[in-house]
Each structure stands twice: as C-alpha cells, then as structure tokens.
C-alpha cells in the first residue's frame, strides 16, 4: 500500500512575470552579415527601425523562424526558440506575423482566412472551452477591425486596407504571445494608410502582448511605438524608449530638418469655451485644439524641434500659451547656424528638443544646466495623437 498522495494545491502557481525577448543574431544569412543583439520588452510596441536594406525584415524573419542564423540564439519569455542545434520551427512558435502584403489565402473566404490560425491554435492548446472563448475574441476583434461586413466575401473583393486589416485579424486570432509586423502599411497608398492607422492605434491600446513592428517611416514609429531598435547595416545602432532615442543628440533623428520628440500626456479636461483640450505633462499643462477624448486618457503629442523656443522669463503677453519650465540638458550644433538643445521637463523623465539659431543662443548666453522656459506653439501638437497602451478598454470606447 502506498501512502495517499498529497492533494495538489487548489490554486495554480502564480504566473511568472513575462520577461520579453532576447535575441543574439550574429552570422551570415545568404550574402548578408547580421550582428544584431537586442532585447524586446514584455509589453508595448517595439519598432525595428532603419533604412531599407539594413536587415530589419531579416531580423523579423529570424524571430519568426522563417530564416535561421547559424549560431544565433533566441529566447522568448521562458521558451528557448533557438540555441545551438535546437531550433523551434515557425509553426511551433506562438507568434502572429503580418506580412508587408496581406497575403490572404485566395482559395478561402475572409472568415476562413481569419479562422485558419485560430483553429490550429485551439487544437494545439487543446482547451476544452476554446470554442466559447474563441467566439468572443472573434466577434470582438472583427468589430475592432471593422471587418464584420466582409466575412463571407473572397479576399479579392476587398480593398488593400481591408485586406491588411483581415491579415492583422488573422494573425491575432491565432492567439499569439508575440506579434510580428513587417511594414504592414508600406504596401498601402496614402488613403488606405490613413484608414488603417486608427485600427492599429486601437489595437495598441488593447493588446497585452509585445509587438515588434518593422518600419522605415519615422512618423509611423512616433505614432505607434513605445520602444525603438535603430538598425544600420545589419547591426543595432541604438535601442530604448522612442522618446529617448528621438531626443538623443548622438543619433541621426535630432539632426533631421523636421526633428521632433513625443510626450505621453494625460487629459485633464476640455475647455468648451475655447475648444481646447488640456493635457498634463511634467511641470505644467498644455492645451491642444480639439476635443481629444475623456478625462484621464493618455495621448501622445508630437512636438517639432523648430516649434520650441526658449526664454528666461515667462512672457505673459504672447500668443503662445504653452510654456513649460525646463532645464537645459544638452546642446549640439546641427549645422553652422543652428543648434539642437535638449530640454528636460520637471522630474527629468521626459525630454523635448528645441531648434535655435547659434546667434540667439550666444546673444542670450544660455548655459547647460540652466533653468529656462520652453515656449511651444500649440498647433504643433495636433498630429500624432493616439491612445497609449495603458488606457483601459472602457475608457477608450468613450
């Protein structure tokens, strides 16, 4: 007689916190030399950014297992996907992949396309109640992506933007733990791009899984991404939060003609008399034309470096109403006549860039470390408004 087995604990062990992804891709792929080591945080959108031909799509394909760097290694959360001879093939990785072209299966309807991965993921996890839970996710996602009306149609009857939305839905319905997107907007024209961006922003606000987003369009990155990995010729040049990289004077972003930084700000309220939304940022309040959403929601605002000017005193008699106390953190020449100045907001966590002429800098004799005021033209902040990742679903539907 064996002693009775102890009862298993009633509650499952607490889920360990996700740790994101770590990749070490060093070696040749075809005639391309890759040397990309990087970390992807466990939540938020990470942009793989760089000029065409820098290897960002190759890196994404390596993450999916569609390509293999000999001697590379890759870990996602607590699963090892590649190490030495160990290599998990793509169909065994819990990923969703959105290709540049929608690549819907032409022999299946939109609904069958959407369910292609969902069915197989359900089979893989063998959850008894998968049907019920999937049904909810399906209806919700179809609503979110605005594709409910086209479920019965063949893919060739859809517009480019509609097709790409179906492709995104198809990837998400395969219940991925990591979403990989390869320039999902680049094959679309301007009109379709504008149509699909709001859906991506809504997804960004809802998704709890990490997203790796390949792009060569900085405007897209500023609008959608939280983190950025800057690639150059197969190597990682810099990595970190988007706002940090944008205001880093040693990187190429700050030196471009339309250099800009982003701030994530919380909505304080709407001034109905003047039609301005008030946003809270460290050290002050910014007002932006238009009603941008409900109180408490987070919006990203984009501030062009040339829309920011510096003063020593708060000037009450000016048409510029957005004035923040800042300290000068860094300065570097852009060209002979112009300088980039990095300004730290109160608390030191957020930064904005200001583009000033060398003449004014010398005339006013600013010094690094000095406390000054940044004047921001309010109009500069209308673009690049989005729903940040920490918005609750209830709030974002307001």
């Amino acid at each position, binding site marked *: 007689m064996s002693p009775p087995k102890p009862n298993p604990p009633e509650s499952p062990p607490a889920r360990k916190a996700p740790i994101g992804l770590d990749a070490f891709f060093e070696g040749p792929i075809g005639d391309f030399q890759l040397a990309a080591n990087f970390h992807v945080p466990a939540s938020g959108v990470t942009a793989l950014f760089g000029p065409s031909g820098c290897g960002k799509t190759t890196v994404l394909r390596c993450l*999916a*297992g*569609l390509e293999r760097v000999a001697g590379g290694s890759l870990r996602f959360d607590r699963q090892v996907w590649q190490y030495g001879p160990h290599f998990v*093939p*793509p*169909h*065994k990785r819990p*990923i*969703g*992949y959105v*290709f540049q*072209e929608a*690549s819907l*299966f*032409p*022999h299946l309807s939109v609904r069958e396309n959407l369910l*292609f*991965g969902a069915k*197989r*993921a359900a089979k*893989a996890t063998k959850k008894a109640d998968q049907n019920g839970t999937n049904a909810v996710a399906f209806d919700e996602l179809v609503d979110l992506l605005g594709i409910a009306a086209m479920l019965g149609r*063949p893919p*060739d009857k859809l517009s480019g933007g509609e097709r790409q939305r179906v492709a995104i839905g*198809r*990837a998400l319905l*395969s219940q991925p733990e990591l979403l*990989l997107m390869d320039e999902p907007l680049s094959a679309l024209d301007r009109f379709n791009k504008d149509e699909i961006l709001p859906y991506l922003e809504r997804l960004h606000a809802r998704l709890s899984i990490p997203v790796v987003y390949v792009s060569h369009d900085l405007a897209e990155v500023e609008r959608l991404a939280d983190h950025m990995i800057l690639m150059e010729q197969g190597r990682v040049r810099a990595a970190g939060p988007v706002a940090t990289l944008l205001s880093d004077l040693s990187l190429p972003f700050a030196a471009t003609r339309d250099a800009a930084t982003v701030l994530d700000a919380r909505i304080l309220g709407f001034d109905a008399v003047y039609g301005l939304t008030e946003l809270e940022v460290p050290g002050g309040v910014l007002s932006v034309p238009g009603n941008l959403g409900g109180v408490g929601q987070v919006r990203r605002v984009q501030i062009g470096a040339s829309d920011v000017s510096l003063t020593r005193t708060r000037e009450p008699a000016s048409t510029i109403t957005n004035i923040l106390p800042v300290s000068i953190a860094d300065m570097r020449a852009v060209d002979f006549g112009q300088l980039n100045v990095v300004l730290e907001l109160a608390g030191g966590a957020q930064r904005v860039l200001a583009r000033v002429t060398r003449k004014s800098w010398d005339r006013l004799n600013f010094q690094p470390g000095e406390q000054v005021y940044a004047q921001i033209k309010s109009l500069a902040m209308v673009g690049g408004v989005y729903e940040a990742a920490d918005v609750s679903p209830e709030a974002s539907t307001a």
Partner: protein
Amino acid sequence: MAEAVFLTLKLAGVTTLILLVVATPLAWWLARSKAKWKEFVGAVVTLPLVLPPTVLGFYLLLALSPDGPIGAPVQRLFGTTLPFTFTGLVIGSVIYSLPFMVQPVRNAFEALGERPLEVAATLRASPWDTFVSVALPLARPGFLSGTVLTFAHTVGEFGVILMLGGNIPGETKVLSVAIYDHVESLEYAEAHILSGGMVVGAFALIWLMTVSQKRWEARIR
C-alpha cells in the same frame, strides 16, 4: 468494339489515379528542393515526352520480360509475367505519361512561391498541414490539366502498347490498336466510328478543362 473502349478507359483511369499518387510528391520535390541534381531527375522524368514510343516500348519490354530487371523479381514474388498483360500496360503507361502529370503539377507548385507556405507556418500549420490545406488547393489548376493530359495521352497511346502489349482482346487490345487493326483490314466504317468518337471525346475533355481552369483563376485572382 465496346470491349476496346472499356479497356482503354480502364487503362487511362488506372494510369491517371496511379500518377496522381506518384507524381504529386515527385513534382513537389522538383518544385521545392534546392538539390543540385534535381534537374537530372527532372530530365529523366521528361524523357518519355521526347523519346519515340517504340524506343520506350522496346526498353520497357526488355525490363519487364521474365529475365529483365523488373520482370524477374515480379515473377519470383507474384508468379506472373508482365508483357502482354493489362498490368504490364499500366506500368508502361505510367512511365510513358509521367511527364504529362509531373510538369503541370510542378509548374503549379512553383507558381505558389514561398509566401502562402510561410503564412501558413506562422499560423501554426505544420508542413504536412500546409501541403494539404494550402499547397494542394492552390495548385488545383495544375492537377486539373495534369489529370486531363494524362488521361487523354494514355487514351491515345499506341507505340508503347504495340511493343509491350500486343493485341489480345479484353486484355491489351485498346482503342488505338483496334483502329489500326480495322484500317489494316480495310474496315473503314468501324475505324471511322472509333476515330470520330476519339476526336469528339478529346475535344470535349480539353474544352471542359479550359473552361473550369478559367473559372478557378477568376475565383482566386
């Protein structure tokens, strides 16, 4: 006369079914493999397309004969001889019509490209699942023309059969051989019925294939 028609359709049907099974993996390998010597195999598969049927039939006859490399083990295992039997004709037809099935199916697999297969892999489909639920349905036009061409080509087979099968009614006497016999004995009326029937049948088959291929292409474009 009906006997010859039935035998011909049976031979063509069996040959087509066997080739669907044999040629599909071969075509897939020829379309997808990166092996350097695959074009060598491709050339061997295409050979029956250019060889005179009599040459093919001659070597097949030697190979299938009771002391040939195929005929000898078959006789030892099953106690049967292959030349001048229906089974022998099926083996000959499978080899003779091989390129007519392999080529269109291989072209269809090659036209797929990598993308749909990669998409399926990222949607959790195993390689076998991908083959069955993506590659096969998308290669349907190739299978359709392969089937029609193989069937029609086997129906019209003459030289190989004459070398390999001879002229045994109900066993190896197919349509083309029957027509030849009728003409030899100056029975032009019978030859007309069979030949005219083949013209009409072949036309109907090709026409049906083209129409359904166009419809499929319109659907998946």
